[in-house]
């Protein structure tokens, strides 16, 4: 198993229970999407997996295992995790090329190898010619692409994605979904993709996990038996897609009916 969650619960010190008894097994190279209403603990769960939660602020119970070990017990470098945030979170004072290379610098990769790898990735992301631009000088779509290849650069085996395309317009979002699918098929890695967009979850993932409203529990898991390579555009019109969307929506819908939970997803 690449990521394994056993009865994971997360509670903030103030008393708010965000996640309750979540268990999930994600295999190597598997693409899993998590959907659920705002505040159901999707993002908090990713932060827990990445060991980014402040123990002074919240308490995590149960067991989280990434690549055979609990993240807390090992150095982050060994866990080899990637994380793509909703905001691109590029370093604004570094150029696109420098941003792509940050993870390689941290891992002490030699100069020439670093240059080669970042050139290849920048080309793959369609960012050639923009290496020396600063993030504010390129479009939102380009920034998110740079953030994606920055994560791929140091070759993490597991990538957590927290609504990475949420801030983009509909067209750009579909383009980036296609690119993510293409990249994932070239170099399969475990991807845990949080989104509030059900169609996006179906288009991308092999399995869709539905979380209930807060405190989030794993309500249902759906297999998406659509063959790869998938066409992010054409798929949306297909009959099978419609059927899946209806089925999963019926499960998800109840969670939106209840009084709206406050707080971030």
């Amino acid at each position, binding site marked *: 198993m690449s990521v394994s969650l056993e009865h994971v619960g997360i509670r903030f010190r103030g008393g708010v229970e965000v996640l309750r008894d979540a268990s999930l097994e994600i295999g190597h190279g598997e693409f899993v999407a998590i959907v659920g209403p705002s505040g159901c603990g999707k993002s908090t769960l990713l932060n827990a997996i*990445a060991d*980014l939660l402040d123990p002074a602020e919240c308490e995590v119970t149960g067991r989280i295992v990434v690549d055979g070990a609990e993240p807390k017990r090992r*150095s*982050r*470098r060994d866990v*080899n*995790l*990637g*994380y793509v*945030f909703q*905001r691109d*979170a590029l*370093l*604004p*004072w*570094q150029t696109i090329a420098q941003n792509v290379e*940050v*993870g390689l*610098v*941290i*891992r002490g990769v030699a100069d020439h190898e670093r240059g080669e790898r970042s050139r290849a990735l920048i080309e793959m992301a369609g960012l050639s010619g923009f290496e020396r631009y*600063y*993030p*504010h000088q390129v479009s939102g779509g380009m920034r998110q692409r740079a953030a994606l290849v920055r994560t791929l650069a*140091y070759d993490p085996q597991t990538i957590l994605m927290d609504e990475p395309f949420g801030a983009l317009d509909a067209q750009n979002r579909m383009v980036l979904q296609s690119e993510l699918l293409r990249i994932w098929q070239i170099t399969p890695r475990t991807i845990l993709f949080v989104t509030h967009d059900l169609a996006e979850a179906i288009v991308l993932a092999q399995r869709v996990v539905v979380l209930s409203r807060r405190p989030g529990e794993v309500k249902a898991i759906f297999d998406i038996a659509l063959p790869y390579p998938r066409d992010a555009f054409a798929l949306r019109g297909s009959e099978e897609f419609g059927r899946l969307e209806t089925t999963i929506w019926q499960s998800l819908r109840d969670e939106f009916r209840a009084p709206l939970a406050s707080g971030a997803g």
Partner: protein
Amino acid sequence: MSRGWSLALRRTALIAAIFAVWELVTGGFGLGIVLTSPAILARPSSSLAELGPYASSGLLWRDLSTTLTEAMVGLVFGIVGGAALGLLLGYWRQGSELLEPILVSLNSLPRIAVAPILLPWLGLGIASKIALSFFTVFFVIFFNTYLGIRSVDPELVKVVQVMGGGRVHLARFVVLPSVFSWIFAALRTSVSFALTGAVVGEFVGASAGLGYRLSIAAGLLDTKRVYLILLILMIFAVTLVEIAKRVEGRLLRWRPSATLAA
């Protein structure tokens, strides 16, 4: 004609008009209209005529270089000292809690009020002015550095942590660049603060400098000389601030230009 040129022309015309009216009501243009005594409102042309003797006596250069030296040395020490303490306290929480009331109290003190105590300590020479200049700049830079550390984007910290970066990487990729951007953004304010510190210090007691010459002229009711020195100070300050602006724009070129114009 481009918009920029037309604006520059209109601005020049406005300034010229103000001086023309001023010259007119102070007995200029041979019309003999004098609204008030020259001790209260001096004629611009007679002020400007003071420049010749001031420059030829060599005093102008001496005053300029004295004030510039005081301001610049105070500025450099203020930036280095303020940044150093800001970084130290930004990382060392107990220290910042301990020193906070002292720093806040010192900062609330009007800088000018400190000038008299600096004189007996450091004398009439440039040291007391450098100290005052330092004192004004130090706190601006210190508070900006300190806030810079405290307001580091937590998401950028997470990015570096997830990649396996430790404290050194966090400092290199996130904390220091973020802090430097706050320091550079305070550069312009600091330059004019440094100059204020130097001039006020000279006012209180000195043997050279633009502020010293200004206080002498004011004491003698030599209004035309006062105006001349004020004009020189203005040109001097505008030049320094303009240089600071260029440096800032260069160092913060990664920023959207909108924030630079603000």
